[in-house]
């Protein structure tokens, strides 16, 4: 066993265990905090994949913004805890069977989509320039449509959130 594989095994097993813990929590705040730990582990997995910029974005955006927003709303509304975990007892065999079928198909489809190509962005190439710089170059040249879409995707919900949750003038 080499050291990278041991580290990957730790991160992978920890992510799976943490996501199991997340979906079975009764207390919402506890669930969010376990999710935080899970996201930190996932950003560790991104570091293995040479995506250091992405790992940091994961921490800043997911952990620093999205989860804080969620925890803020839970605390603001002062939501009471669910008193029992009857939800998970509704888990029937067909549901689990369906999910695992979906899982199998997912893995098979992704394996099939993998082409053993050597593109432009090899590990050495990414290491000489930095990850963030190359991502920026891709974003402003060949992938400019996703960038524009991202702007719209972020703009519309901002208006929606302000309209939905903002103070009503007639109240």
């Amino acid at each position, binding site marked *: 066993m080499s050291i990278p594989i041991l580290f990957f095994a730790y991160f992978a097993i920890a992510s799976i265990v943490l996501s199991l813990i997340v979906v079975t929590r009764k207390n919402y*705040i506890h669930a969010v*905090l376990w999710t*935080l730990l899970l996201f930190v582990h996932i950003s560790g997995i991104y570091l293995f994949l040479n995506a*250091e*910029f992405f*790992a*940091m*974005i994961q*921490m*800043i955006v997911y*952990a*620093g*913004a999205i989860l*804080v*927003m969620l*925890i*803020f709303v839970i*605390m*603001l509304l002062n939501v009471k805890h669910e008193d029992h975990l009857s939800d998970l007892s509704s888990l029937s065999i067909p549901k689990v069977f369906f999910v695992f079928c979906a899982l199998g198909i997912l893995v098979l489809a992704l394996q099939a989509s993998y082409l053993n190509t050597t593109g432009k962005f090899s590990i050495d190439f990414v290491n000489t320039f*930095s*990850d*963030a*710089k190359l991502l920026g170059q891709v974003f402003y040249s060949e992938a400019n449509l996703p960038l524009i879409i991202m702007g719209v995707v972020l703009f519309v919900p901002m208006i929606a959130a302000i309209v939905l949750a903002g103070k009503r003038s007639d109240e």
Partner: protein
Amino acid sequence: MILSIIILIIEVAVVLGVLLLHVAYAVYFERKILGHIQARLGPTEVGPLGLFQPFADLIKLFFKEDNIPFGADKVLFTAAPVIVVTCVMTSFSVLPFAAGWVLANINVGLLFVLAMSSLGVYGIIIAGWSSNSKYAFLGALRSSAQIISYEIPMGIALLAVLIMTGSLNLSDIVYAQDKLPWGMFIFPQIIGFFVFLVCALAETNRTPFDLPEAETELVAGYLTEYSGFRWGLFFLAEYSAMYVMSSMLTICFLGGWTLPPFLTNLLPILNLVPGIIWFLLKVYVIMFFYIWVRGTVPRYRFDQLLKIGWKLLLPLSLTNLFIIMIIKKVFMP
């Protein structure tokens, strides 16, 4: 392999030790300077000029009763101070103190510091929530709103620095400033410097933005239920965060450990002074500014605080970004 790991551990220990000493004396400086601002003397009793006061405080904190309030979430209550301290201390691993004096010279150092400062919010939120106390809860709510709001102008102010350098590595940012004739990024982006300075005050919960722990309204905010050594850990984190923010200001706007080239050309003897001295000098000037502000400015109301963040600092930082984009395009192609 093993040897390099041992060397790394020794380096980390040295940095942590020096840092803790600095934090202890930051408290002493603050009390002294505040005292002189208010025409008092500050601590004088323990040791000559009160120089051993930090150690006396530390020993006192150690022997205080450690109290966990009734109905508190015990695990989270004990975890919160640890989270805050860990997040702040981890930031120091990427800060370059002098040429090559950095624990981890990673390519995304700037983002790492931002990520750690945004993770630090969780410690405060958990502390407020797990205390099972109204004051602590309100303090935590205020704090989370405040820190999220001020992170955005801070990030945009740093974005202008990124445009000037083209690198996220903190050492590269310093080297890029060294190439300029005036040696600092503060000159074209004075607005960005101002925005970052104000945001640094807000991110570290210092006056005039110390709403989360406003003594006169909320007892002590999220710290209300903490006592003894856990309270000391929060205190440690606050002062370390001041050092992180001062170092970031120094690295990103004031040229880090380098001096402006026109100064070194004028007086070549200044080149002999090691860079860490200039770095610490700049950091301590900003620390003095922090304490000066605390002695001078009254606290804002909460709605005023959010208004400043969203309606003043955010447009200012965007203006700065726009100006820097034009300067970069026109004058530094």
